[in-house]
């Protein structure tokens, strides 16, 4: 996640010092956001995608019990249903074609979207929670505590994240099986495994968040209103909760929207390595890495790469536009 390191550059932090907090930031932000057409369009795109993703499984479930024709359609489009129709190009029946097991690619893309977006959102949320707490505590405690906490961040920063992920995925997965809860209801394991993926990805992307938040907090600490509050006898916890965390909110939201696409991308890399979701489940990453195998000089099943790739890239674009739009709207970098 070193890509985002810039955000914690000393200069941007300094610049943020100069920014003044607007009277009603949310409203002003919204007004500005509405004027940003790419961001607005992206927001609509994401919303539409989410609706389709949510509606598709429902449609299939309803179709299952709605007459023989509909049931056949549902069976044909179940994401994990194998059939003899291997490598069918897109047609009226399968809009995105079928894969090597005769499964409907459209359905797999939509089911994969659940996983990919969930990984992105939950991973980002994990990074948000750890990062904000860590950074806020380090920043407001200052002194030796700050030093120690930031050294830990330094160490984790210099560790190649892949080692971390591999160990987490392999070790924790086995440890989880020993849990009494899992022993009683083994079906839980599948969900727990997915959870590890989320947590694992979140756990490697909170570092930058922690640094940003710490920088913000450090600059906020010297602000007059914080001094005033301190002089009035407010406890450090109170200052942290009432003044500091609300004031770093803008930066955090913006950074969060930029973390989501980064995590989705990282998950696709893990899937390429065979470390992502467990088959027969799909994620965009696993679908794309299956599609990439089809690029060769003899014959290309183009639909297996174009559709999953197109949806992934367009969604990442939308999320990034959204993040940029939010940043401009919240005026994070200051002007």
């Amino acid at each position, binding site marked *: 996640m070193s890509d985002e390191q810039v955000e914690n550059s000393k200069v941007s932090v300094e610049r943020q010092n100069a920014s003044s907090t607007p009277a009603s930031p949310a409203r002003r932000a919204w007004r500005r956001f509405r004027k940003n057409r790419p961001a607005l369009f992206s927001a609509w795109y994401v919303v539409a995608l989410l609706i389709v993703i949510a509606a598709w499984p429902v449609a299939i479930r309803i179709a299952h019990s709605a007459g023989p024709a509909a049931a056949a359609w549902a069976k044909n489009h179940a994401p994990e249903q194998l059939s003899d129709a291997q490598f069918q190009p897109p047609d009226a029946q399968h809009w995105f074609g079928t894969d090597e097991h005769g499964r409907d690619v459209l359905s797999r893309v939509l089911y994969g979207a659940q996983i990919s977006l969930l990984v992105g959102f939950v991973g980002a949320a994990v990074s948000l929670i750890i990062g904000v707490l860590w950074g806020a505590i380090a920043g407001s405690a200052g002194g030796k505590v700050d030093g120690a906490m930031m050294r830990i961040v330094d160490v984790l920063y210099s560790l190649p994240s892949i080692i971390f992920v591999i160990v987490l995925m392999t070790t924790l997965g086995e440890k989880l099986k020993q849990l009494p809860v899992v022993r009683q209801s083994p079906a839980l394991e599948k969900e727990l495994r997915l959870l590890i993926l989320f947590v694992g990805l979140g756990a490697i992307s909170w570092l930058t968040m922690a640094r940003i938040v710490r920088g913000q907090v450090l600059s906020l600490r010297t602000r007059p209103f914080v001094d005033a509050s301190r002089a009035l006898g407010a406890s450090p916890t109170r200052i942290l909760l009432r003044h500091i965390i609300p004031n770093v909110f803008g930066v955090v939201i913006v950074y969060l929207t930029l973390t989501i696409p980064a995590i989705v991308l990282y998950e696709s890399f893990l899937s390429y390595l065979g470390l992502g979701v467990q088959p027969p489940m799909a994620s965009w990453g696993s679908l794309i890495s299956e599609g990439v195998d089809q690029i060769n000089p003899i014959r290309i099943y183009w639909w297996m790469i174009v559709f999953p790739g197109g949806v*992934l890239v367009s969604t990442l674009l939308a999320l990034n536009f959204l993040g940029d739009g939010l940043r401009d709207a919240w005026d994070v970098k200051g002007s």
Partner: protein
Amino acid sequence: MYFLKRLTYMIPLLLVISAVSFWLVHLAPGGPFDKERAPASPQIKHNLEAKYHLDEPVWKQYLRYVGGLAHGDFGPSLKYRDHSVTDIVLQGLPVSMLLGWLAFGFAMGVGLPAGFITAVQRGRWQDHVGSFLALLAVCIPGFVIAPILVLVFTIKWHLLPVALWESPAHAVLPTIALGLYFAGKIARLFREGMLNTMQMEFVTAARAKGLGENTLLMRHAVRLAVLPVVSYAGPMLADLFTGSFVIENIFQIPGLGVFFINSSLNSDYTMTVGLALLYAVLLIVLNLVVDFAYMLLDPRVKYE
């Protein structure tokens, strides 16, 4: 003085990193000597583990490892048993660094002009197209763009070699595939930096004083606007120099990136820890260089 202090601080940091990664790799299930074909007697595996001291407790192994480090010995690779970790790094690092420099050059060569144009043309079509392309470059995974480049430039058009690492022509596609993401990143950062500095008070003041746009932008704005790019360059170069698994795998390049992934997957303990240390050293040194460059570029920044 500040830099010296940073350098001395590096040694304990490296020790901690080696300890953490050492512990992590031993935590993962599966050892380097688990094979599809079991040795004819369990004794053979014991022989192997005894030979590489894997039968000792982890802390003892770690002390042994650190003892080796003190003599500059990073241990033998457990997967490639004829090679020491140092051998492998010495073979792979120059290749990865060369490709890294090329990709860096490409990313800067494409990213900076793109960032500049999109910034000065803010809101016009050049900005929209440029910004979109920059974002696109950031959003397409490397393992998608690389096979597509291969397909188009080598299979369809026969312009460049498919893979391997032999002549400058062999470096073209990997450089682009590797550098594209960073080019997009840099373009975005530089645009951002330009927009911010152009709105700064001193720039507006200078404009008011009637300083020509040319000299003004040259002298001050760019110098400040490039700062985010400079601070990004540190971690970016550390990433580039240690190679990319995807690019090296697809283009068959004998760099270090493949080892980063495979050593963890193969439980090649010494190799994993050695590479983690290498990455950490590169990151620290490059960040130092970046801070130094910062000081030269921005008079406001001072280190104590």
